[in-house]
């Protein structure tokens, strides 16, 4: 489980990539995402994947992202098999599975390097309504807490003789009730406490809250934006008109 989620949970690291404005990181990730979809040969997709892993290395998060890629390799194999089954040919199957890996890793690069607070800043900049932004950021902030709750609840119920591994599918689903109900109840209680704390710190007093940090584009941000757009455009051109580069 951690293998999959590890690639999407923010980790505080000091790296050149992390120093970039969050919007620039979003742009880079989007560019990779789009290129993965456009690339029509296996070598092209492989190149994109390599480029993503290079950026991951610059972001000092190669191991995390690498692990997620490896884990999603399982799904990639599945996609490969399905494609073969539908008679789409070996090369196409490989292409699609590689493409899947590239898509997963491009999203991963963004989420691993961007904290929920920065996500909040991006959403505010995109003029997402204040309450939606707050709900999203709070949800992300409490994911580890709710997970911990879930483990503690499972421990408590296991200690009352509840066995998860045994029994039919029906039995196993029924055994989830003693976990889900306390989890939901705890979340409701938690929301109530959060609401009180929010009110007590004047949440909602203004439709336009100020913030401690702003986002300002520095020279390196602009450089990366321009540079990456040039590279992406060149890559796109190459994909559609490979001939023009042989001039």
């Amino acid at each position, binding site marked *: 489980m951690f293998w999959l989620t590890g690639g999407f949970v923010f980790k505080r690291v000091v790296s050149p990539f992390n120093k970039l404005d969050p919007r620039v990181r979003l742009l880079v990730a989007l560019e990779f995402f789009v290129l993965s979809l456009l690339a029509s040969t296996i070598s092209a997709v492989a190149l994109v994947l390599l480029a993503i892993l290079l950026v991951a290395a610059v972001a000092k998060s190669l191991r995390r992202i690498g692990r997620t890629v490896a884990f999603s390799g399982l799904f990639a194999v599945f996609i490969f098999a399905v494609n073969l089954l539908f008679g789409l040919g070996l090369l196409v199957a490989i292409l699609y599975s590689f493409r899947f890996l590239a898509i997963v890793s491009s999203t991963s690069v963004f989420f691993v390097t961007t*904290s929920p607070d920065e996500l909040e800043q991006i959403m505010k900049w995109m003029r997402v309504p204040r309450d939606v932004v707050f709900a999203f950021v709070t949800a*992300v902030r409490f994911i580890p807490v709710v997970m911990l709750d879930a483990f503690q609840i499972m421990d408590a119920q296991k200690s009352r003789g509840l066995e998860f591994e045994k029994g039919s599918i029906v039995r196993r689903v029924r055994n989830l009730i003693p976990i889900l109900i306390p989890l939901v109840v705890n979340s409701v209680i938690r929301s109530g406490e959060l609401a009180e704390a929010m009110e007590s*710190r004047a949440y909602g007093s203004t439709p336009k809250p*100020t*913030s401690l940090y702003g986002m300002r584009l520095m020279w390196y941000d602009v450089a990366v934006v321009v540079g990456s757009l040039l590279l992406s455009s060149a890559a796109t051109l190459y994909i559609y008109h490979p001939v023009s580069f042989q001039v």
Partner: protein
Amino acid sequence: MSTTTSPGEKNILVSIEGLSFRYPDSQRPAVKDVSLEIGEGEVVLLAGQSGCGKSTLLRCVNGLIPHMYPGDYRGSVSVGGLKVAETPMSMLSQRVGLLFQNPENQIFMFSVERDVAFGLQNLSVPREEMRSRVDEAMRLLGVSDLALRAPHELSDGQKQRTALAGVMAMRPRLIILDEPTSLLDPKTALEVVSLIERLNRELGITFIVVEHRLELLIPIADRLVVMDGGSKVMDGVPRDVLADARVEAYGVSVPPISRLYNALSKEGVRLPKVPETPEEMAEELNGL
């Protein structure tokens, strides 16, 4: 502990008159005809068994009642001259801060400094002023080195201090704490208590603390108010209140030393002063 002026000379910061409150889905009032005055700079300890109305009273002072929890509300509560029922939370939160029991559920942001800034953001405080107030609050609470840390990287004591810093950034004159130490171990609890004492002494902030572990707060409390069944039943200097045998009947966890004092008084053994700590009592007993 306010030592310079006697209670009568202090400015009254909180004035509660004939307050009664009943939640909409309840038959009996949670708070019944409570009247209480708290002077500026006082540290008031509020005690009583579960369900006696202490938590409800706290919420009446900081404004959650009636703004977030409407109900059958009678009487009045004023803080710093402002009538709580008629003042919006945006203003009240700058006079009264409320710290809850579970530090986890009061930290919203992904870094300490952004969370401390949370209230200021909501008040549209401009960035420069926000920065200096956040830095000041973090320094006061000793969490400046933790500024960039995420909540899951903090210990319970650190979380509680972060939440308190978030409240301090609003520059309130009164801070209310609802069982702030119940989820902490005793040593961390003592640290929080000395923090309260320092803020009270250095900045003159008034405190109302609800606590079961009285022995932690008694050394710094000016007053002990006991509630039972929604009413205020005892109110006075901690030493005197604890020396009154009725206090145990109200479900208050009286510390062993105070219980011993009462037990001895019943036997006719009168000590010169009501002791607040075991060391004080030993001194007195040695002198007998």
